[in-house]
């Protein structure tokens, strides 16, 4: 074959490929996905990606199906479109920091929102900003198909380090059938002088927990974990709602604000659910895997979990299917204003480790799989805990069928109340570990709420000094800007 004919054949092949991709765009994918797949082909043609490369994706057991699709349909489509291979594996049960720093055979993995600062500081993550610019991608936040919380899920220090892939906003789940039960309504009215309804404040929530708590019958009023690794998730919504617009963790000089009446109130409310919880609720490791089966099997009134909870409770095998509701997180009434706050308690977003051997391919796969249309197939998978992360997901019939329309609507209303996960600062692991420990001890009755907060504040000051107060102040100013600016009611 002459060079000319080879070139012509190559051009013709490119034309065919373009036609194929365009048709694929019409049938399956949106513009973002089409462009990502085309770019892979182009980079292969230019030698920046080797033909037949394998992308090593490592995610958690609970969400691997979200990236491969039902019956690995997404995997097959990606491989067909790009001519590359996808090797998806389940990551070990380790914290992201430990896993990424020890892993050498991972091109693309997941990390939680609050983990970025420490991962970046350790040099373990690739800065995706240059790739965004090079390939012309952005993280839109428009209400049609934009990312729900890109500002909270993708950035650190003004740079993009993650592609949002899981909108893990915490919601409160209640037994709607019990709330609507006439006998219960009469009894509650009689007992509290108020109608039985979904809680507005955390105090309302405590009353409901007490009302529905029947441990003698194996039924509990509050199914919130109180173990030492996840305590902050259930404390943070209580704390952040203590002031208008927010009760911040630090002041402008990074002095902790938690050793305050607001901090104490939040902590006390956190502790007061313990009597309405299952007996082993304070045991180490009793996280949502302990509380969730209670609610799933109809043995509790309320629980706090991400949107994925609805996916489980809506299964045919669950006794609570059709009997539960998700409601906005309770808040605090500050003067005449009801301040509701929630947070991203898990959130498994796509990050590219610095050790990735295929950063370009990893980035383009991340853009492809989070495309507004492709991600419908990912989030819509029944067998995975990745939750809707784009506005387009909230209106999609398939997603509604999996999550229920009601839950998706509540999520939409709660988006304006979401505060950043954890502290959002370098050293977050240390800050949160201290807070978790003190909250756990307070829940166990070893400390008062006030002491727990004071000790936590002292420890936080030490951590801040160790990391450099001025530098932490700079970061904190950025994090603080991500908090909601207004209260709803």
């Amino acid at each position, binding site marked *: 074959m002459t060079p000319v004919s080879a070139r012509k054949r190559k051009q013709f092949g490119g034309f065919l490929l373009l036609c194929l991709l365009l048709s694929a765009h019409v049938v399956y994918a949106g513009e973002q996905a089409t462009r990502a797949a085309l770019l892979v082909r182009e980079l292969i043609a230019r030698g920046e990606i080797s033909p037949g490369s394998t992308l090593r994706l490592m995610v958690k057991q609970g969400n691997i199906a979200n990236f491969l699709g039902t019956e690995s349909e997404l995997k097959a489509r990606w491989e067909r479109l790009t001519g590359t291979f996808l090797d998806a594996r389940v990551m070990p049960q380790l914290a992201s920091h430990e896993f990424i720093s020890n892993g050498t055979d991972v091109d693309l993995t997941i990390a939680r929102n609050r983990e970025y600062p420490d991962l970046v500081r350790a040099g373990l993550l690739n800065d995706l900003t240059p790739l965004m610019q090079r390939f012309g991608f952005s993280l839109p936040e428009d209400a049609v198909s934009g990312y729900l919380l890109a500002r909270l899920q993708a950035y650190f220090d003004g740079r993009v380090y993650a592609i949002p892939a899981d909108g893990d906003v915490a919601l409160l789940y209640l037994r709607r059938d019990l709330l609507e039960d006439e006998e219960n309504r009469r009894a509650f009215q009689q007992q509290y002088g108020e109608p039985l309804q979904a809680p507005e404040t955390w105090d309302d929530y405590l009353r409901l927990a007490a009302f529905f708590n029947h441990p003698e019958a194996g039924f509990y009023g509050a199914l919130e974990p109180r173990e030492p690794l996840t305590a902050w998730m259930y404390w943070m919504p209580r704390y952040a709602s203590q002031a208008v617009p927010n009760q911040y963790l630090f002041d402008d000089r990074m002095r902790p604000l938690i050793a305050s009446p607001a901090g104490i109130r939040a902590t006390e409310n956190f502790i007061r659910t313990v009597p309405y919880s299952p007996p082993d609720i304070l045991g180490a490791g009793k996280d949502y895997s302990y509380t969730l089966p209670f609610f799933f099997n109809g043995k509790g009134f309320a629980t706090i979990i991400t949107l994925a909870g609805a996916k489980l409770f809506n299964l045919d095998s669950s006794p609570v299917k059709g009997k539960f509701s998700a409601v906005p997180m309770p808040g605090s009434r500050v003067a005449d204003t009801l301040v509701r706050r929630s947070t991203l308690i898990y959130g498994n977003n796509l990050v590219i480790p610095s050790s990735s051997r295929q950063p370009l391919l990893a980035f383009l796969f991340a853009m492809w799989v989070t495309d507004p249309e492709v991600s419908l197939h990912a989030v819509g998978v029944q*067998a995975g805990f990745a939750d809707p992360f784009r506005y387009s997901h909230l209106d999609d019939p398939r997603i509604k069928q999996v999550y229920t329309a009601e839950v998706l609507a509540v999520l939409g209303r709660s988006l304006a109340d979401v505060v950043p996960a954890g502290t959002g600062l370098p050293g977050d692991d240390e800050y949160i570990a201290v807070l978790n420990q003190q909250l756990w001890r307070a829940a166990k009755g070893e400390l008062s709420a006030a002491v727990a907060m004071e000790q936590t504040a002292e420890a936080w000051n030490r951590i801040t000094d160790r990391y450099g107060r001025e530098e932490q102040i700079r970061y904190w100013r950025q994090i603080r800007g991500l908090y909601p600016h207004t209260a709803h009611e």
Partner: protein
Amino acid sequence: MNMWRFTSFRKQLLAAFGGIGVLVMIMLLLGNQIAGVSIKQFTRLISDQVQVLASANDLHLRIGRLRLVEIELANLTDYFAVANELQTLNRQITEFQRELELFEQQQQYASGAVMRSLGRSWELYRQDLQVVSGYAKKMQMGEAIRVSSFQSVLHFKDIQLQLQAVSSSMKQAVQQAYLRTEQEQQQLRSGFTLVSLLGLFVVISFVVLFSRSLSRRVISLRDAAERVSRGFTHSPIHVDGNDELASLAAAFNQMQQQVQSRERALTEAHDTLEMRVEHRTRELNASNQHLQQEMDERRRVEISLKLLSQAMEQSPVGVFIADIKGRIEYVNDAFVKSLGYHSAALTGESFLLLIQKAIPRDVTRELIATINAGQEWRGEVEVRLEGGVFEWMSLRIAPVKSADRQITHFLAIKEDVTVRKQQEAKILYQAQFDSLTDLPNRALALDRLSHSMVAAERHGSKVVLMFLDLDDFKKINDSLGHEIGDKLLMQAAARLKQAVRKSDTVARQGGDEFLVILDGLTTGADAEPVVENILKSFNCSFLVDGHDLVVTPSIGLAVYPEDGEDPGKLLRNADLAMYQAKEDGRNTFHFYNRMIHDHSLQRLELERELRHALEREEMELYYQPLFDIKSRKLVGAEALIRWNSRAFGLVSPNHFIGLAEQTGLIVQLGEWAMQHACQQACLWQNLLPDFLMSINVSPRQFRGGFITGTILRSLKQSLFPINQLQIEVTEGLLIRNLPEVQEALTTLDRLGVRLAMDDFGTGYSSLSYLKNFPFHTLKIDRSFINDMTDDPDYRTIVSAAISMGRALGLSLVAEGVETEQQLAILTEEGCQTAQGFLFGKPVPAAEFSDRWMEGEVDDVVGGAV
């Protein structure tokens, strides 16, 4: 075998090999059939075996994977992964069920009891899996683990055991099948071996019998032939059979009879021949002795000739021998190499033609005459060789005569004398040229001067000898050294050569003195431009080894024959004139002849003044009126330039116009005259609307193509009508027929300027000029007008000129009209316009206005006359 003896060998061999071939083919087909059956049996056996084992192994793997998924499901901590694991588990169950059914259908080795047992175990395990799935769906992982650990594990192990039993059962069945197949193949191999041995025996028997029959009769023939070859006679051999061998034996018997009879005849002939040979041998021995003597003699002669030939070949002197017709028969290497030819190319060529090409014709004629007369010719000639190289050779050609004195050949001997000739030329050059400046030396200069003087004598021309001495050269030589001095002389010599004409001789007299010989001059003054060139060429300083040196020459000039009739005297007088130039202040020249010298100085002075004449406003235009002869009215004027020098007073145009043309100043003067004449004409045109202004234009003004611009500028500045301006040119302008002149005249004509040919009749008076150039007016020279009243010939000329001009449609102007008689003749001949003292001499503009622009012409003319 007897039957075979009555057929030919060819048929016998064909039948034999055909039989063997058929036998081999039967054996091959049989062998192939046996091998095919064997391969099929083994392939089927192995295929069945592998397929069954693969299926059994696949079941092993699948049940293992299923168990793994079951355990993973039961141990899940992340409830969100349950659904995914359940999907996987159900898929695995379905696939195992399908594989098991397929296995039951395909397998033929395991017993039915074993397979039934396996099916029961699988059913129990599948129920366990459903139980585990149910617990997992309810997030009752503890129960799921319990069932998986204590209940389903037993059924899983049962399945494994059943599968192992199936595998063992299959192995035994497969082994038996293998043994049966092996026995069958052993039987086939034995049968094939027996058939093969039988066929081999048949082939060997046939070959042995056939070869024995053949070899017996061939050996009988061979023995008979050997006996015949050894000369033994024998009774005829026995003829057996009817094939080719029997025919061969009969033919052999016949041949044996013929051989015996010929052998007898040959023996008799041999004896006779022996006797003859003996006689002839004796005769040959006598002849050989005689020949040997002759060969010895010839060898001696050949040695001698070879020696002579080698001497000739290796001689450095070129030699050739030609026959009586001049064709070269022999030529040696030295001759060939010297001419640049090949010997093969020369042999057979005419040496006369060769010589004619190389040497002058007169020499060739002399040579041919000499050798034809039977005499030897000698000479030295310069020969042009192949490649254009010249060589001097000494040539000697002598006739070779036979014993009876007849010329049979020509012998030529050639010797290269180029080196000697070059040395002679070098000596001659050194004797005639100065080694430092490469100029002719004094001796050669005087020799050339002598030749120039002889030529001048013959042609009546002049020769000027310049004696040039460098001023203050001695100081430079003494202060900067001889080396600098020598280099300065070399540069001075170069400048001198550039300042003179190529035909002139520049020579070094000696020291810092040089001679310059100018010949072919009309007057001694003709040397002045050359002298000025030389003086100018020394105006620039000399840069010698970083020294900026100013050197000027003092030049003395002597003219032959006025200043001396022999070279020595002319040289001496030029030397004296040079000393006079030194006394005049150096950097100048001085003629030995006083008159020439004065004239020359005056001319130089005149030139110096002329250069400043315009800026000093010493130039003035005079105007001579032009009158219509018939009406006697003024029609115009001819502008004439006059120089009123502050140094020389009123200078005649005859003196300064030529000088201005030589120096190029005429261009400025011409432009000035054109501007002023046009301005003046414009004033007069107000009084006389058809006023014609005629102006002379020098040929020098046409150089460079500026004349058109000059005229147009003047007309534009003055506003004088272009068709009333007339420019006058002489034939001298037209002789060289320069394109730029042709172009300028054509342009001026196209613009409307009138062109007049001045002084017609004094030059070539070529009619072609009048035809080829756009003239409007013909001006008849005053010399014809002056004499036409006295000389009828001149009148005829004037008449012819007027007729010709009229015929060509030209206006006619008669110049120098001074008398009424002349005017009458011109009137009679039909000339239209006249100018001359009869009407008025050239006068300044103011006077012209007073006299002619404000009065009646008749009065004026009458007054003038």
